[in-house]
């Protein structure tokens, strides 16, 4: 049996497969369907300082091999998360990654302090949500803004800080470098690609919010390309995501440069997708006679 252990930003992961923020709630629902301890980690639903109701429905539109979503960061707020969800999450033997979004740099820092105290394993700084007006991707599309959020969170957090990048930029490597220079311990990418669908009968956008974030296999090649570009630009570890459905997809993402991978949209089709991806990686390693999963990271052979 191949060794799937990875140390990522100093945190031990028993497998390189985590579930992506926004697709897994706070774990309870999927916890009814499989043993969450089989996961490398859980990125919880995006948190904000204060509770948010999110956008009105419809919040989802289907597109060939993909979906557009515009949930708009519906969440109970960081305080209720810590009080009501952390006690359950702490009983699990898997890494808990708290995903945070702020309207201001100060809000990011305040959340990071509270969540460090609450005992999460990693803080994922979301500077890439396409579905909210303030904050979110506004911080992720400028090097200066991305760096200032990263610096503020890094200064206050007592756990590793992973910054989640948006693909909706001209040069993702430039943002990645700015975030690394500002002290990020890791990067995660890609968040969703901004998209739109229109109902031709009513002439109205399918999503109430007009636009939404595209995810699923439709974005996979874009995600692989961006992980590869970022791998080339920075030294810090990368959590690669975007349309991973199978173990083979995960291996491809790791060859491009990801140290660990995140499974999200695939869960909507197969609730056990993260487990099947993990099994698929193990099968690949055995077939290729590779002892440790860490050996494949960034090992694409370029033409």
């Amino acid at each position: 049996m191949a060794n799937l252990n990875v140390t990522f930003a100093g945190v031990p992961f028993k497998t390189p497969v985590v579930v992506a923020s926004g697709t897994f709630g706070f774990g309870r629902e999927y916890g009814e369907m499989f043993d969450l301890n089989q996961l490398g980690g859980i990125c919880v639903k995006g948190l904000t300082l204060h509770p948010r109701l999110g956008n009105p429905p419809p919040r989802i539109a289907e597109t060939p091999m993909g979906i557009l979503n515009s949930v708009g960061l519906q969440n109970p707020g960081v305080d209720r998360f810590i009080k009501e969800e952390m006690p359950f999450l702490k009983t699990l033997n898997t890494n808990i990654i708290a995903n945070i979004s702020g309207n201001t740099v100060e809000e990011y820092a305040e959340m990071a302090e509270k969540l460090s105290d609450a005992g999460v394993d990693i803080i994922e700084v979301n500077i890439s949500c396409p579905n909210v007006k303030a904050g979110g991707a506004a911080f992720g599309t400028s090097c200066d803004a991305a760096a200032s959020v990263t610096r503020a969170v890094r200064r206050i957090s007592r756990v590793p800080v992973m910054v989640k990048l948006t693909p909706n930029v001209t040069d993702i490597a430039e943002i990645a470098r700015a975030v690394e220079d500002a002290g990020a311990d890791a990067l995660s990418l890609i968040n969703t690609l901004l998209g739109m669908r229109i109902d031709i009968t009513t002439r109205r956008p399918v999503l109430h919010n007009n636009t939404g974030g595209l995810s699923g296999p439709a974005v996979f090649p874009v995600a692989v390309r961006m992980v590869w570009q970022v791998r080339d630009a920075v030294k810090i570890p990368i959590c690669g995501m975007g349309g991973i459905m199978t173990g083979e997809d995960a291996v491809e993402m790791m060859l491009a440069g990801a140290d660990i991978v995140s499974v999200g949209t695939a869960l909507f089709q197969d609730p056990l997708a993260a487990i099947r991806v993990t099994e698929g990686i193990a099968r690949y390693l055995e077939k290729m006679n590779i002892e440790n999963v860490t050996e494949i990271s960034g090992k694409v052979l370029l033409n």
Partner: protein
Amino acid sequence: MPITTLATVQDTRMLTESVCKMVLFSPELARLAKPGQFVHIKCGGESLLRRPISICDVQEDTLTLVLERKGAGTQYLAERRAGDTLDLLGPLGNGFELPDGKLLLVGGGIGVPPLLYAAKRAKGADAVLGFKTKSAIILEEEFQSACGETAVVTDDGSYRLHGNVTVPLREMLHRGGYAGVLACGPRAMLRAVAEVCAAFKVPCQVSMEERMGCGVGACLVCVCETEKEGERAMSRVCKDGPVFRAEEVCW
């Protein structure tokens, strides 16, 4: 607790030009399913998302589903034939509460099917079924045998009563004797039914529909705005619903 399972198609039949009835062999789901719950079915091709289909009826080892062919996903499902297998996730959602006493079931169009299983499990039920036109009528005989009285209305008057479901609904509630109303159908119909029930002070449960993602309550895509004890919330149709107390829905 939901399960994923492969179910074999036993029989399929078109009830109207676009509505398909499908009987699936799945002893596990048949044992677990409650009226008002649904199954989330994997579709082939480029459809990434499953399709939520309400459970119309349950026999010993089978589930009956009635679905409308609308897009690529439901087209795929409607094309299945006896012997094919489908990947089902379910049973999902809270389902109807069935209070003691006679119930009045109000269904509109493709909202009619889930009320059939409720009719069979209730301690007595009458039904009001509304359709666009005569050719869209489904399950009339099934409701007639499961219910005491079944009123059918059509929007265009091409069959039975002309008008919408609130006309017979008012008459039947006026006569009285119902412990509650269960309704499923288009949002505008549900809202009208909720208003009539509030006027008659009869408890009303409505089964809501929304574009859905995961189906299990994790992705927060299929929400319905609700207010309970003064607290507004975006409730999850798939997990907190699909059945809500009508007075809690922010219409």
